[in-house]
């Protein structure tokens, strides 16, 4: 497991274990996902394994920020009601 992935996992755990705010946390997670394909693959796998809706949403948003819009767009549209406006960078 790469250092980035370790950092990603531990940081993601912070989202669900600390009170927040998590804007900076998500910022760090997105930066890590952008910079490492291993992280991105892990995000994709974790998304499919996850049962919790909030966690699936968080992972989908991280993945989309890292450039994987096609794979996760439908989820956010259907589950969270995202519109075209929300996908604008």
């Amino acid at each position: 497991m790469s250092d980035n992935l370790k950092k990603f996992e531990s940081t993601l755990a912070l989202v669900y274990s600390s009170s927040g705010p998590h804007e900076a946390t998500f910022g760090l997670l997105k930066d890590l996902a952008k910079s490492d394909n291993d992280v991105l693959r892990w995000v994709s796998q974790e998304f499919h394994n996850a049962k919790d809706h909030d966690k699936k949403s968080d992972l989908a948003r991280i993945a989309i920020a890292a450039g994987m819009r096609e794979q996760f767009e439908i989820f956010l549209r259907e589950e969270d009601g995202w519109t075209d406006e929300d996908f604008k960078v």
Partner: protein
Amino acid sequence: MSKLWLILVFWLGTIVQGTTAQAADVCFFIVWKAQGSAVGEQLPGYINFVDLNDYEKVSFAVMPSSRRFDSTGKVIESKSMGCIDSDVFKIGSNRIRFSFVLGNGGIAITEGYLQVEAWVELPNRSSKLLVFSRYDADPNRAYWEEKKVFDIAFSEVDPELAAEAEHVVHEIQADIGMIKQVSAAYNAESSTLENAVRSIESKSFDAITSEDFGSYLEAKEKLRVLRLKADDKRNEVKAKQAELKATVASIKERVDGDLRSQGFDVGSKDFFQVPLDLDPILDQGPSSEVNPFAIWSEKTIADLQYLYGNEQRVQFLEKVSHWTVQAQDLIDTVSLRASIQPEEFNQLTAAVKSVEKYIYGDEQSSKGVIDRELWFQDNPVPVEFRRDMADALEKTGDPGLKRMANSIKNWTSPDGKMSKNQQAVLALSYGMWNLTRFFKSLPQPKPEDFQEVDASGQAREQVYSSALKNYNGAVANYRQMMADIQGAVDTAADLRVSASPLSPLKALCELITQRRWCGDSGEKIGLVDNAFNAIEVFPLGLSTMLIGKGIQKSLLNGLEIFGEEFEAAVNVAETVVEVAGKDAAKAKVILDSAKKWDSVESLLHVVKGNYQIAADGTRKLVTGMHTKLGFDNFIELNQSAGKTFSIRNVTEFAVERIEAGGEILSQTLENGVRRVQLPRDAWANADAFSDAIAYSEAGQRLKGIKTLWPESYDVSKIGDITRRIVESNPNIRNSIIEASVDGIKINVRVDASGKVLTSYPVWKQ
């Protein structure tokens, strides 16, 4: 004036007392005949005429002229003639109207009847029966009234001449009609233009944009041309009037001649009534419009008096400088017009002189507020400083600065102190003189330089580079300006003049060169200091000039002079000023505190936050905003864009997302940390909204939240705390540091190099 004679004739016998019509009059004959009864002695009486023109009733006497008798001696026919002075009788509209009362000398008609005939003998010697009446015998009646209206037309007097006159008059009147049509069109256009001029004149001169000014000049010019045309039309009408008058006079002369040749003296005056009323624009003569230049000069003087009276001397000088450029531009613009009117130019120069008199005084009566080198008259410069400064200025070799040096040498000073006002004068003398010269040297862009090219066409950069071809000359001007500025700053440094008075100039110089004191070997200046410099430049209004217009931007980009750092500094400065509520002094405090931060971006992220501006002007939050200053700024900016938020204090926050609306939930904790929750539509998009989450005390996920540093923590203090946290955790990088300082739980995100990206209180304190 012609005369008309009315002759009344009573035929009551065979004796005709010979009275004939006088040669100078038009004659009417009235004959009174009796049948079976005698006609009484005819006494003088009166006949009334009514003039059609003014309906004035006038009278004239009738006198017995001849009588006839029967075999028994009875008067059987009486002829009378009446005369009227034509001075009181006018022929109007080619017609005559009259009525009369006849008396029979107080004698009743006791048998038979009385017959009255009235004839008019026309100037052509033809006669026309006007009245024919018979009155039955009536022993109780001695007077008979005849009310007759008889119109005598000019055509009856002289049909041929009348037709000719009618034709000529008709033609001339038709011409006048056409001129009046043109005049009406001028009136309409004139009204539109005058409205446009008034609209612009009603504005404060300072508020007039260059477009306004262009429209104003154009409208004034059109109005002026229109008035010239109206003058032409007025002259045409005058010529037609003269032609008509001459024609009428000619006809009258012929009529008079004809009448005189026939033995009558009929005046032909007033045969024609030609309406010559004209439209207002043709009638009004020279216009008496408002003098906008006088208004402008009065307002300028009033503004200057206010600034001087309130010890706002730097602003006074800025206003003088602004006005000087404006006045020269105005004079140039007006002077260049080929069609300038002396009156307008005189108005402008008088206005300029009146302002100059206030500012600089005149030789006779007024000393003025400042002299031509911008030194205040009431606060002169110390001798030693003047000498040193003059020497330094001469060394520059610049003609303008040498001129200033000569002036300084000749100055006398009653004391040895230099006031701040004088220092400000010094700075502005240098700066504005140079900068004004530079910006005035910029060539005007052509519209086509900045037109977007067609869809297939060039990128905007290409358009800019195309435009840059026009600015080669500006390069030399720019470099000269920089040399001048640098020279001035060096001089000031040599003379140990404090940075304060020179700051606008020095700031610009440093902003451009990115070097301390503008020198090539000077210390490289960081973004914060450069943002400082950008703020310093704001009061000079240069930031707008430098970056606000495409022309300058393209010029500067194209010359690769300012570069990204310049723009970044200006952007940071503008952002800080925006956060500080347009207050430059407050902005400086923020930037001063920013020196505690190693990144202006992180400072702004924490203090202000990052927004997107929606199409309706509202701000949508993306990230950041962890101070009350930034939060209030966000609310205020939205308020000014029409989006109002109300703040409700709560102890619990909404678990279900707040979709839209104007309510922000807020809670201030005991340690001063404040927690807020904004509705969904305050955020740029769903991602930003979903990133900003926290968990409630009950473990519920809350969206759209923010935490704010305690209100008492200024930017400097936040920077200090953050710096200490980072320095205390040297091993934590590219991560989020959790810490607690002064009873506040804090998170700081740092990048791999330890640079702070953000710093904020956590949700659960």
